[in-house]
């Protein structure tokens, strides 16, 4: 017997998947926390201070992934804007969700980096190329959010999408800057000079997986929220049209 996919069964399946995903994320995060704080040995020169690294590196790296999602969603929005407005709205919802997560992850990356730099370097902040461009990325996505807020509803999506393309050009510059200029930021630890010892890998990987799963979860939630808001707007617009038709009749 073929299974019927009514909206309610689809919703139940989705709800179960989300619940499962949330539970799995929490489990992975707990394992990651245990690895990072209790199991992995302290690093030779920095001691326990280095444990913030398991949070800093993951957030900082994932903070560079969400801008790409934002850029692709924005490009998709610009492509579908005239061709298929409904698909364009979905792309725009992805763009909002990933922009907000970019701000969140980059903020956490910046704050944990600052907390680490003070004991390790002796200064809270160094204006070297990588830190500067990373701060710039944060500023760009805050500017993106402000653009969305300031723009009138009809054109806000398009202007934000255009700005996103400008912002996304900045991300490769951020990543390349470490090799362009000699900087104070530690060399890439996953490859290159500051290679990480085998012992530390479990803490890095579990935490990376955990925060990536958490990011994906929040991204999907924010997307669903934005879609709901769009539907409510469409409904309101439809009712307004119907009401005006009632008046003219």
């Amino acid at each position, binding site marked *: 017997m073929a299974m019927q996919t009514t909206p309610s069964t689809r919703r139940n399946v989705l709800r179960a998947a989300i619940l499962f995903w949330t539970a799995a994320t929490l489990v992975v995060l707990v394992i990651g926390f245990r690895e990072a704080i209790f199991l992995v040995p302290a690093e030779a020169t920095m001691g326990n201070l280095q444990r913030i690294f398991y949070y800093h590196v993951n957030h900082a790296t994932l903070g560079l992934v969400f801008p790409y999602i934002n850029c692709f969603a924005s490009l998709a929005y610009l492509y579908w804007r005239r061709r298929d407005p409904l698909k364009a709205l979905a792309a725009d919802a992805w763009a909002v969700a990933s922009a907000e997560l970019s701000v969140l992850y980059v903020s956490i990356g910046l704050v944990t980096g600052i907390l680490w730099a003070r004991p390790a370097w002796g200064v809270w902040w160094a204006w070297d190329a990588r830190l500067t461009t990373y701060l710039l990325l944060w*500023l760009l996505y805050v*500017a993106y959010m402000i*653009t969305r807020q300031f723009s009138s509803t009809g054109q806000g999506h398009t202007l934000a999408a255009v700005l996103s393309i*400008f912002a996304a050009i900045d991300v490769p510059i951020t990543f390349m800057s470490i090799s362009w200029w000699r900087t104070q930021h530690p060399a890439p630890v996953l490859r290159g000079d500051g290679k990480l010892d085998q012992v530390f890998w479990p803490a890095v990987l579990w935490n990376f997986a955990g925060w990536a799963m958490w990011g994906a979860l929040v991204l999907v939630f924010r997307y669903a929220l934005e879609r709901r808001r769009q539907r409510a707007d469409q409904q309101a617009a439809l009712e307004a049209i119907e009401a005006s038709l009632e008046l003219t009749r």
Partner: protein
Amino acid sequence: MNYLAHVLNHLRKDLRLEWRSRDAVNGMLFFSLLVVVVFSLAFDPTGNPTTTRQISGGILWIALLFASVTALNQSWTREVRNSVLDAQRMAPSPPSALFLGKAIANLCFVSLVELVLAPLFVVFYNLHALGNGWLLLLVMPLGTWALVVNGTFFAALSLRSKNRELLLPLLLFPISVPALLAMVNATTGILTAEIDSIQLSLWIKLLGGYDVLFTTVCLLLFGTVLNAE
């Protein structure tokens, strides 16, 4: 009519408008003069020539950045009056020609301000370049174009938003940070002769690359911004 003719037409129109009113240039000129005076009161430039040489590149570019924001906000407001912008959208000429014409016009205005400001800087800050002064002839136009091309684009982008005057600097300043870094470092390097020529050429190349990249992006996306509804 080919593309170049369209660009020249727009440029001629913008230059003529400015020639008749002189709003943008006068405002920018006086504003940047005030910034120079206020900074010279804050730092005492004649007392300490070495420090002055190190910071004056930054002060010059910040003065120009702030001044160009005041003019760029005006440059599209002209087009909104009497629905000129809607007429431009319906015109058969490509949208990027309108943008390019206006950006080149703004480059002319800001360059004019620089020509007046440069001797004033020398006088007020007791300044002379220790490095290759003629390199400034390369750095100044490249840096100005970096400010103006993005500034013109984002002025158009923020034209129909709620807080037009505020939104332009909020967008322009973060986008301009790499260019600002390059132009300030290059200018300071030329004035102080403290950084080596390889590093100097790297900053100038970065500035040139930034110009090419963002000019391309602005030209490609201007049509979308103009017709965003």
